C-alpha cells in the first residue's frame, strides 16, 4: 500500500475531539488484542533490524496473526525485540460477516521514541461489483491516499492517488465515481478504533 509521509499536526477541528495519537496507538493495539482473544489464531513471526542512523541497533519482532478458520490476516504487530511491551507498529484488519475487509487501522511509531505515533491511519474500504476501493484518513481526517482496483463496464480499473494528487482532473477519470461515490465518508466514528 502506498503511503504519504506526513508528520502529525494537531489542527483545530470542529465538533469532533479526536483522540490523541498516543491514545490512538493504544487503541489500535487494544483492538488487536480484542480480535485475537475472540478467535483461534495462527501466527507467523519475523525478526529484523532497522536501518538508518537514528534507528540503528533497534531490533524488532513482527508477528502476523491469522484467523485459523478463514485464513484472514487479522493484525500485524511489530514489537521492540528487547522490550516487547514497546509497540512500534500495529495494523488491524476488520472483516464483515461475509469475510470482506471493511476497514483497517494502523499506527506507526519510531523505535527511538515509541510512545508517540508519527503515522496514524484509518482505511475505509468499499466494494462496488468487481471494484474494491479504499480511502486512507489520518487521525484528523485528512485523506492521504485513495486506491481502487478491479473492473467496471468491462474495463480494468486501477486508481492509486496520493492525497496531493486528488483533484478535479484525477477524480474525473474513468471508474473513479464507481470506485468512490458509494464509500462512507464517516471516518470519524472510527477514530476510536473498533
Amino acid at each position: 500500500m502506498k503511503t504519504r509521509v506526513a508528520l502529525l499536526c494537531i489542527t483545530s477541528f470542529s465538533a469532533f475531539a479526536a483522540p490523541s495519537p498516543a491514545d490512538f496507538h493504544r487503541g489500535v493495539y487494544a483492538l488487536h488484542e480484542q480480535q485475537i482473544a475472540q478467535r483461534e489464531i495462527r501466527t507467523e513471526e519475523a525478526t529484523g533490524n532497522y536501518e538508518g542512523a537514528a534507528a540503528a541497533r533497534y531490533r524488532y519482532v513482527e508477528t502476523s496473526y491469522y484467523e485459523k478458520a478463514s485464513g484472514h490476516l487479522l493484525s500485524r504487530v511489530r514489537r521492540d525485540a528487547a522490550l516487547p511491551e514497546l509497540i512500534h507498529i500495529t495494523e488491524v484488519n476488520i472483516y464483515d460477516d461475509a469475510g470482506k475487509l471493511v476497514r483497517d487501522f494502523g499506527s506507526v511509531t519510531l523505535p527511538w521514541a515509541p510512545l508517540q505515533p508519527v503515522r496514524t491511519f484509518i482505511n475505509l474500504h468499499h466494494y462496488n461489483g468487481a471494484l474494491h476501493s479504499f480511502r486512507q484518513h489520518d487521525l484528523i481526517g485528512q485523506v492521504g491516499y485513495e486506491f481502487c482496483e478491479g473492473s467496471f463496464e468491462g474495463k480494468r480499473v486501477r486508481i492509486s492517488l496520493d492525497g496531493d494528487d486528488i483533484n478535479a482532473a484525477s477524480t474525473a477519470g474513468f471508474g473513479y465515481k464507481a470506485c468512490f461515490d458509494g464509500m462512507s465518508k464517516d471516518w470519524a466514528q472510527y477514530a476510536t478504533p473498533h
Partner: protein
Amino acid sequence: MIRNYLLAASLIVGCLVTSVASAASPDVTLNDIQGKTHHFSEYIGRGHWTVLVVWGPRCPPCIEEMPELQGFHDDHKDGKARVLGVAVDFPTFGQAKRDEVAKFSEDYLIGFPVLLGNAEIFTRFGGAELQGVPTTVIYDRKGAIAVRHTGSVTRDMIERFIAKWDGEATP
C-alpha cells in the same frame, strides 16, 4: 504495508539524524546518582571537547553503545575530550530513575560522569527538543554545540568528527 511505513519513517530519520548548531549552551544544574548537584560548566567549555550522551537504561541501542563511549572516554579523558552521560527514562523521556541508572552504571562499569535528567531539561542544554535516545551532543572546546545526533554513535565516528573539527580549527 509495514514496509511503506518504514520508508516513511526512514525519510523522517533523514531529517533528524544530524543537526549542527553553534549557540553556546546555558548552564544547567543536574544531580548525579549520589544526589550531588553539578553544573554543566564543570564539564563543558573547559578547553576540551565534551561528548554528551543522552541515554536511557532500558534503551537497547544505548546499552550497546556504552562500551564505545567508555572506550573513547578512557582514551581521551586526560586530554582532548571527555564523555558526560545524561540519563532519562525510556521510553517516556521523563526524569531518570536514580536506582535504575545507578544499577546500570555499575553493571556496565560506566566510568564517566552520569547525571539524571529528562527531556524537558534537554532543551536547555541540547539546543532542541529531544527526539529520541540515544542522542549525542558534542560541545567544542569553548562549550558551543558542534553537532547533535539522534541515534547510536561509535567511537570511530566521534574520533573522526573531533579530528576533522580540530583540523579545521588549526591555522
